[in-house]
């Protein structure tokens, strides 16, 4: 079978910012891209390395504090490039720590303000209590299930769209019912689990946009069997909504 095209997939900071299984999002994207009949080139972006000329899809995960501080300098170096790609419609999914860094700022418990990239119009404050547990959302891509584990409480600015509405769990801050944020094709979310394998509609939404950018043609999906993902997701949603 001839390839429908090649998608350049960038994993932001795999060593520093991928400690809660977020690598699974890369495994899922790469495998689904291949199963849809496209080729995939995976770029592990580490501090100090150069981004590919024409990246089509970005994924970044959560890290510990030490990982976060180690990527800040590099993130400042590639900030303009990321902002440009984001406003041109490049799909990106940023989880937990990198979701926070894609926002306007992170304010620590001590009141120190660390600036973010400002791609998503959100602000995060350090919180003494951690929000941990299973979580279910309603989103534009159907019901989405995952696991959240964060102490930062994020607030959306007026006009910033959320990624989903919380049906079970805490979400951005545990009080306003929102989870994550979406601008253009950039999604920020607290959902580990990891988020994409069990929510293939969301994965394919990102892949579809990346395929358009890579080929200049509409996405030509393959015929994938998602029965295991559907069963895993619906069982977990039933459990969490019943709890």
């Amino acid at each position, binding site marked *: 079978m001839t390839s429908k095209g090649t998608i350049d997939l960038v994993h932001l900071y795999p060593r*520093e910012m991928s*400690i809660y*299984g977020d*690598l699974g999002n890369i495994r899922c994207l790469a495998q689904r891209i291949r199963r849809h009949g496209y080729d995939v080139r995976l770029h592990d972006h580490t501090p100090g390395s150069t981004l590919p000329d024409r990246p089509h899809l970005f994924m970044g995960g959560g890290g510990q504090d*030490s990982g976060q501080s180690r990527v800040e300098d590099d993130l400042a170096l590639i900030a303009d490039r990321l902002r440009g790609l984001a406003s041109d419609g490049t799909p990106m999914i940023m989880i937990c720590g990198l979701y926070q860094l894609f926002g306007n700022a992170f304010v620590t418990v001590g009141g120190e303000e660390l600036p973010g990239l400002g791609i998503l119009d959100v602000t995060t404050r350090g919180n003494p209590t951690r929000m941990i547990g299973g979580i279910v959302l309603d989103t534009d891509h159907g019901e989405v299930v995952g696991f959240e584990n964060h102490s930062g409480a994020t607030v959306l600015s007026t006009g910033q769209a959320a990624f989903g509405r919380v049906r079970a769990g805490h979400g951005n801050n545990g009080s306003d019912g929102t989870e994550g944020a979406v601008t253009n094709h950039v999604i920020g979310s607290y959902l580990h689990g*990891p988020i994409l*394998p069990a929510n293939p509609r969301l994965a394919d939404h990102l892949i579809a946009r990346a395929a358009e950018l890579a080929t200049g043609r509409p996405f030509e999906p393959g015929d994938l069997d998602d029965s*295991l993902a559907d069963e895993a997701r619906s069982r977990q949603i039933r459990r969490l909504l019943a709890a």
Partner: protein
Amino acid sequence: MLRTTAAIVAGKTARVAARVRGGGSAMPGLVAERIDPQLLAHALSGVTDGIVVVTGTNGKTTTTKMLAAILRAHGKRVFSNPTGSNFTRGVVSAMLGDLPLSGRLDADVAVLELDEWHALQFAKVVTPTHALLLNVARDQLDRFAEIDTTAKLLGTLAATTSTGVVRNRDDSFVARLDESQFRPGVTMRWFGIDPEVADDLPPLHEADARFEDELAPPEPGPDDGMLHPRSAAEFSIRFGDNEIGPLVLRQRGLAAMINATAATTTARLVLGDAFRRELAEEALRAVTPPFGRGEVIDAGGFPLELVLVKNPAGFTVALGTYHAEPVTTMVAINDDYADGQDVSWLYDVSFASLRDKGVALTSGVRAYDMALRLDYDDVRVAAVEPDLDRALDRLISDHPAEPRRIFCTYTAMMRLRRLLAARYGLAGFGEEPA
């Protein structure tokens, strides 16, 4: 002194009550600790040949058992907490059975398995003579919050240890501990996998992302134990030109070989000139696996192996068995608190080694998530059966005449072990021979 006696009596009573209820192993110790926090210090004050703390994320229970066995083979009276109850109150619990009312333990050496946090709490009351630091991996993040914090706990423990620190040279968190914090004159020893062999294995440990450079641990010296696997079952441990083995353990897998290397290196340090190669080999050959940790059960004439998996590092080591022959595989994943409620970690393990033979069954509450995980690695899954009882029945009836291996999280292991015990007349929990 009156207070100590009261504490022991109260603890012993609770111990009997817990046994009767079939309850957990940590509760009686909690009762005693509340009454006398100095109980531990007093009880261990008569132990002359060493107080060894074994800690790290993976392999504590197995290593502790092996180390205690080697020391006993050398004629030492060893106090240990063999039940896998690795909190300080678990130590008190285990001790109460052996403790005379004087409150002083009648033993030469104490070998104590403690998790990272409790190891440090213990060291605040009793100074360990030796610390064996196995590894640092992500495990129960909601308790320790972050892996860096865990590494710091081990550093602090090493800094309080009076005589000797034994470390894993292949684990970058353990190998990078700040030695300037160690006590002056403390002996440092290493254990690890021979570098020639290590190249054939997948990465077995988390990398410490705080540093740019690759870790370059010191060259192994004549007292550092290096593991040489010879086949899936046989291995030797080399100390310079001296070799322990070759030998075969009763417990399967590379993880057990690494643990044996750690235990032997530590035993040599604790025993000094009294260490005898033959006694160590004999002890290692005879030691039985703790429940569900590479334990091999005779299920209808063919072996069935239970392998506890708790985190990516442990699962990776379990899959990375050296030159293994393929077996029929089942994976059982639950997500209770003791298992870890977040199953994301399954995506940090590569299952490519299971691709050839496939997986017969996935089971447990997260059976479908596990099947999905395997599907993304192109591993064929023949059946998904969330119910553990039915899954075990199926595994045994569909694959009666071949070796089988079940990878399982903690509560799944407990359930499966109980079912297997009833079926094949195995010893129950709490009846394990020392």
